[in-house]
């Protein structure tokens, strides 16, 4: 028995050492058309398996398997979004596996017209962008041209052309692009929605196959030649260049500070300048950010003044639609106020927190290194760090998992309680405005309250649509909610005064 034990130790030690030494062995050669992750999986089975695991143990499709509705959990959201597509269908996020599926089936897309820009963050789109871009530039866009190089200018051109086109038209184009595997061949990584949709009202018939278009895929974060991280999204290229040109200070992005010290003749280009560590956040900031995206204009990231909630607000306030009409996302159903919609500003909120300031990147927490045999690999099951506290946090924080969980819970709980408080203030405001109308307040008098309402709702939405429940920047989240409460209540007071007057 003892002998067996010793032998086993020996064998294990041998195996582990071998593992430690293995370099990449490329089974399959990749090029710039490989949006299908399966061939990549042949080279890097471990990352591929984890990537697939973002679907959970198995893919959960069908309407009954959609994530919980946020509108049901927080009924005040319906009043916040009144008059906007989000009031129809708005759910919890889930793993990357679902991003395309969930967008294709959401009633926001199927009951309201949406633009092609939506796909910027929900699918592997670079081949499509390049193809349309090359064509628009009058260059060859055959399979060989597509496979050759990434070509950011062409990608950007294609993105601009498609940005304001109708969603379903662009989705259709997307499915026709080469994805590096022969049509019909290869394993299907994720399930498709049932042909015709699981509810015929909800989805146009049989136009969409998950094997022909893919959610974010290896090629969207990695260079197929070097496997280095890279930026593929034109929205981010524009946004981060604008941020670099602003005055706001971000010592956590040293390459921006360096660019600023230079002559600024060329816009800041993350592909050339960003450090490997900065890239560990930038790849995520291609999508987990606030944006405008609808048919009236090209997708835009609003960072020209900085990433703080007020700076983004100011950006939207100063923005004009083409034709110089003032910008807004929607007119509020109850009050008619022009409002801004905040979407998942994870990158922006994180940038205001102490982790960001200390240089802790998204990937550090959401794709932590873990030991696999003798190697350290990044966990490609991108998920909540609470599922994985030991790898995600304990590398830096030498305290128990229980303690870490408690710390997160305290921060999140404070945020959640305050969020409900801000929501109550918001509904009180709407009630008061409604009442003022009944009291006979004039349109002009009521319009004078719109800016307060917009500021209140913008701040409430900013934290409520951010997905960390305040963890990414604890104090900043509370501050933003405090301001939301203040604006809501000031609008309420203004409305009450109208009643008193009339």
């Amino acid at each position: 028995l003892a002998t067996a034990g010793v032998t086993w130790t020996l064998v294990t030690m041998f195996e582990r050492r071998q593992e430690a030494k293995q370099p990449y062995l490329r089974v399959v050669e990749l090029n710039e058309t490989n949006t299908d992750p399966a061939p990549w999986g042949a080279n890097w089975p471990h990352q591929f398996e984890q990537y697939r695991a973002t679907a959970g143990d198995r893919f959960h499709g069908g309407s009954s398997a959609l994530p919980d509705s946020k509108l049901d959990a927080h009924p005040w959201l319906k009043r916040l979004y009144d008059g906007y597509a989000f009031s129809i269908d708005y759910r919890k996020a889930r793993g990357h596996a679902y991003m395309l599926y969930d967008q294709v089936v959401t009633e926001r897309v199927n009951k309201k017209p949406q633009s092609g820009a939506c796909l910027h963050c929900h699918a592997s789109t670079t081949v499509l962008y390049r193809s349309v871009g090359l064509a628009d530039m009058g260059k060859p866009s055959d399979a060989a041209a597509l496979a050759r190089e990434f070509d950011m200018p062409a990608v950007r051109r294609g993105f601009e052309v498609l940005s304001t086109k109708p969603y379903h038209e662009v989705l259709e184009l997307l499915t026709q692009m080469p994805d590096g595997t022969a049509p019909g061949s290869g394993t299907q990584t994720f399930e498709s929605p049932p042909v015709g949709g699981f509810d015929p009202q909800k989805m146009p018939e049989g136009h969409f196959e998950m094997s022909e278009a893919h959610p974010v895929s290896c090629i969207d974060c990695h260079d197929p030649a070097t496997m280095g991280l890279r930026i593929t999204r034109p929205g981010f290229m524009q946004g981060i260049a604008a941020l670099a040109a602003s005055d706001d200070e971000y010592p956590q992005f040293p390459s921006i500070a360096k660019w600023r010290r230079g002559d600024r003749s060329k816009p800041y280009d993350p592909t050339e300048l960003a450090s490997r560590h900065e890239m560990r956040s930038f790849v995520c900031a291609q999508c987990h950010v606030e944006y405008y995206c609808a048919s009236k204009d090209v997708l835009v990231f609003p960072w020209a003044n900085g990433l703080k909630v007020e700076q983004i607000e100011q950006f939207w306030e100063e923005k004009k639609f083409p034709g110089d009409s003032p910008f807004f996302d929607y007119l509020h159903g109850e009050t008619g106020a022009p409002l801004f919609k905040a979407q998942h500003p994870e990158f922006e909120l994180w940038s205001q927190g102490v982790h960001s300031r200390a240089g802790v990147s998204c990937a550090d927490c959401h794709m932590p290194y873990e030991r696999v045999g003798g190697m350290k690999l990044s966990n490609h099951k991108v998920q909540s760090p609470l599922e994985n506290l030991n790898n995600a946090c304990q590398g830096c924080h030498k305290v128990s998992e229980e303690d870490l969980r408690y710390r997160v819970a305290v921060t999140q709980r404070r945020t959640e309680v305050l969020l409900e408080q801000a929501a109550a203030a918001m509904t009180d405001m709407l009630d008061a405005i409604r009442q003022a109308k009944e009291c006979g307040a004039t349109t002009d008098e009521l319009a004078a309250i719109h800016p307060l309402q917009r500021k209140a709702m913008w701040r409430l939405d900013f934290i409520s649509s951010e997905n960390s429940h305040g963890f990414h920047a604890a104090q900043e989240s509370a501050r933003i909610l405090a301001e939301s409460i203040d604006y809501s209540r000031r609008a309420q007071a203004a409305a009450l005064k109208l009643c008193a007057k009339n």
Partner: protein
Amino acid sequence: MIGAFVGLGAFTFGYGKGAAYLSNDPAACANCHVMQSAFDSWQHSGHHHVATCNDCHLAPHPIGKWIVKADNGFFHSLAFTTGNFHEPIQIKPRNRRVTQDACVHCHRDFVHEMLPATRGGDMLDCIHCHRDVGHAQR
């Protein structure tokens, strides 16, 4: 049978550079890849030219030293082989006490005022403040 055990054991010992537990060479600890990050962070620490692993992780006490070696040697090998241990590796309370003793052993004069006023009194944990002594940039 006994012979086989001793023979194979000795080979394993040698192959695994199990002599780590007998030698003072830090590289020997890093022989186990799970010790790599401890080794790397030790190399970045202010202490790497004044203290090796054993200076901090073995009791300065002559008998205690061998008991700690036996204890940790046995458990590390077992844990390593079965792969059954918490990652990242966490120091156990008793081993933490060993390092605290080691700090005081070397810095006794300097931290004289921090020693307990009365025998048996408690004292502050050195690594409460000196988080990265021994292992920097973790």
